[in-house]
């Protein structure tokens, strides 16, 4: 695979960077946080992004999308990650729309995807639970079939944008015991359905998340996404793709933190010289550069592989490699960025701390580096 961007892709990246600079500079992120904005982002800005084709970037033109590839998605996500932009790409596009694209019936797609592509419908994937940690197949939420409908009961945690999503994709156990990969079913349900209760959660990063409690929520057979009892595999496929997308966001964040730090090293003076002239800091900065370049390669390779039709096994491998590397690299870059900024880097009023918190949240979401290394080893059979 050729790991270079086309001119069109480069242009898409520049457009994204300009939009972020104009509409979502870091001071906007700070304002959203300090105001404890209940939504956590702007539905207007999201519609604007949708008009640029980002909400429907992976959605076929037949469903109102742009029908582009993962490499295009990567280019946009990198810029959003750079700016720590909280609009719902991850929840609605990478998790929600992905689930519909990979597992939805024709009717389900036609019902939802055009509105998603238009920026009018927000989705969320409610899969994580108190005891699931990184195992997407650990599902304790139950769904029981009785009197012609499914009844869902359980609690999901840290559901990205779950507090505002119009439609939730929920994993529930229809058979088997909590840790089985089999016996899981995905359901589509409206957030305003009776028995659904959402509560905003406040995390360290700028992404909004929510607790979603399901208390005997009733849905019909048509709410099942994919096949009954076969949602485990679908969920894994969705998450591998979302994980790869997340690494593009992480790449943007680590690049921004690194560039901010190199600028500081060039300009901050101590002992009468720029601190970037100290060889120990130089070597550390050079090592960080190497780490970010290797991360960039992994992110590009993973997205490219999806574009080239990677099968599930390949997608899982690429997700593991890219996520492990970006987790370690982003944490390292962010820790070093704060250290090299010195005292000012520890203050809330400096922006570098945002990246440290974003790095941690991204490191842990969808599994940390050790988890993904173990996963790769298992995938390879050792």
């Amino acid at each position, binding site marked *: 695979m050729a790991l270079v961007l086309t001119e069109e892709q480069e242009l898409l990246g520049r457009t994204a960077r300009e939009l972020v600079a104009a509409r979502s500079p870091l001071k906007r992120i700070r304002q959203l946080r300090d105001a404890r904005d209940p939504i956590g982002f702007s539905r207007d800005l999201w519609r604007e992004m949708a008009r640029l084709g980002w909400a429907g970037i992976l959605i076929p033109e037949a469903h109102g999308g742009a029908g582009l590839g993962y490499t295009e998605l990567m280019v946009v996500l990198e810029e959003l990650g750079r700016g720590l932009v909280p609009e719902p790409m991850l929840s609605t596009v990478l998790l929600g729309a992905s689930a519909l694209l990979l597992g939805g019936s024709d009717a389900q797609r036609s019902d939802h995807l055009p509105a998603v592509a238009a920026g009018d419908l927000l989705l969320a994937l409610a899969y994580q639970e108190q005891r699931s*940690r990184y195992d997407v197949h650990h599902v304790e939420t139950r769904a029981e079939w009785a009197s012609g409908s499914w009844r869902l009961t359980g609690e999901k945690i840290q559901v990205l944008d779950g507090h505002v999503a119009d439609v939730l994709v929920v994993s529930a156990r229809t058979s088997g015991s909590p840790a089985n990969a089999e016996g899981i079913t995905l359901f589509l349900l409206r957030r305003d359905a009776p028995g659904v209760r959402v509560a905003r*959660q406040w*995390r360290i990063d700028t992404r909004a998340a929510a607790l979603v409690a399901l208390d005997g929520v009733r849905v019909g057979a048509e709410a099942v996404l994919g096949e009954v009892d076969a949602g485990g595999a679908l969920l894994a496929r969705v998450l591998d793709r979302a994980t790869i997308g997340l690494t593009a966001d992480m790449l943007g964040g680590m690049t921004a933190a690194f560039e901010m730090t190199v600028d500081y090293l060039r300009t901050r003076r*101590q002992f009468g010289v720029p601190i970037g002239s100290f060889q120990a800091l130089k070597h550390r900065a050079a090592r960080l550069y190497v780490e970010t370049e290797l991360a960039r390669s992994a992110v590009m390779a993973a997205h490219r592989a999806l574009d080239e039709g990677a099968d599930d096994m390949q997608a899982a491998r690429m997700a593991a490699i890219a996520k492990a590397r970006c987790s370690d690299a982003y944490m390292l870059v962010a820790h070093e960025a704060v250290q090299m900024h010195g*005292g000012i880097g520890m203050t809330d*009023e400096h922006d570098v701390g945002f990246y440290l918190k974003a790095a941690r949240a991204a490191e842990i979401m969808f599994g940390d580096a050790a988890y993904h290394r173990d996963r790769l080893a298992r995938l390879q059979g050792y």
Partner: protein
Amino acid sequence: MDDLDAFREETRRWLVANAPPSMRKPLAAGEDYCWGGRKGRWPADVARWLAAMAERGWTAPTWPREYGGGGLSEEEGKVLAQEMAKLGVRPPLVGFGLTMIGPLLLHVGSEQQKRRHLPPIAHGEIRWCQGYSEPGAGSDLAGLQTRAVRDGDVFVVTGQKVWTSFADKADWMFLLVRTDPDAPKHAGITFLLMDMASPGVTVRPIKLISGASPFCETFITDVRVPVENVVGHVNEGWGIAKMLLRFERNMIADAFKERDDAARLLALARRYLPADDGRVGQPIVRDQITQLEMDQACFDWTLARSRARVKAGHPPGPETSIFKYYGTELNQRRRDLAVRIAGPQALGWEGEGFADDEVKLTRDWLRSRGNSIEGGTSEVQLNIIAKRVLGLPD
């Protein structure tokens, strides 16, 4: 030895009789030790415990009695510490007065300075803060710009200090000022004591990424400080500052010496990564916990070696940089590991879905990132070791 045994016996009896039961428990979440000072307010038990100990001079056990101390010998002081540890009683008072400016004044203060400043420290009446760092200087401490101009019997001080720990809660500040702007960088600096209630002093807390505000900016505008408040000699403050930095490094190292860290990490691992066989579920995490436990043990033994050398009559030297450097690194590794053990539950800032102790894990990790910056960055410590211990050339 019989005397010492008798002292031990009597000390224990007194502690049992006088320490309130609430002062024999570890700090609960949100509780803090008593830092003293005019601005502080503490629960009745804390105040009672402080008063009882201060009356015996045991807030500063080895200081001379005439300065408010207990007049104990080194050995007696050790016995007191041992008995307090055995009974689990809290120190009645902590702070920079007892650990930094007090010992410094005992070494190099004038008789008048000792009589004036030491008793209020020992009694917990006056709380001190340290005015070293400045906005433009950072690791280059000696690059400080705060100026002090002599005007008769006073110095008129103008400038800005930053990273002043708890300046908003302190009554007095010891600080470095530039008294000779034409002298070479290290030669024109003077060490001053300044009343924070003086006209012209204002303080603004700095909010950290962890959400807490343990540090302040201190703005000093035409503040008049009597000449008698110079410690040592005018323009010779740099040597005193360096002496104090070594006290500080030792103190920071002590702060990072927590005996039950491995146990706490282990408890976390058992909570978030349970395994059927009773071991820690993730071998990689288990290995990291063990590594931390081992490194902590080696660090503690290294501190013990240094103490033994000091006791044998050698003053603490540049090797104290090891403690600052490695102690903070250990603490950072520990906080980082704790967050990775808690996993998704460590992503909370506040509110629903996250327990208080989970939020604390995360904020402790964020706060720990400052450890390798404050009190002399890790880079500065490594420079000191390379130059002063290894003799590597500039």
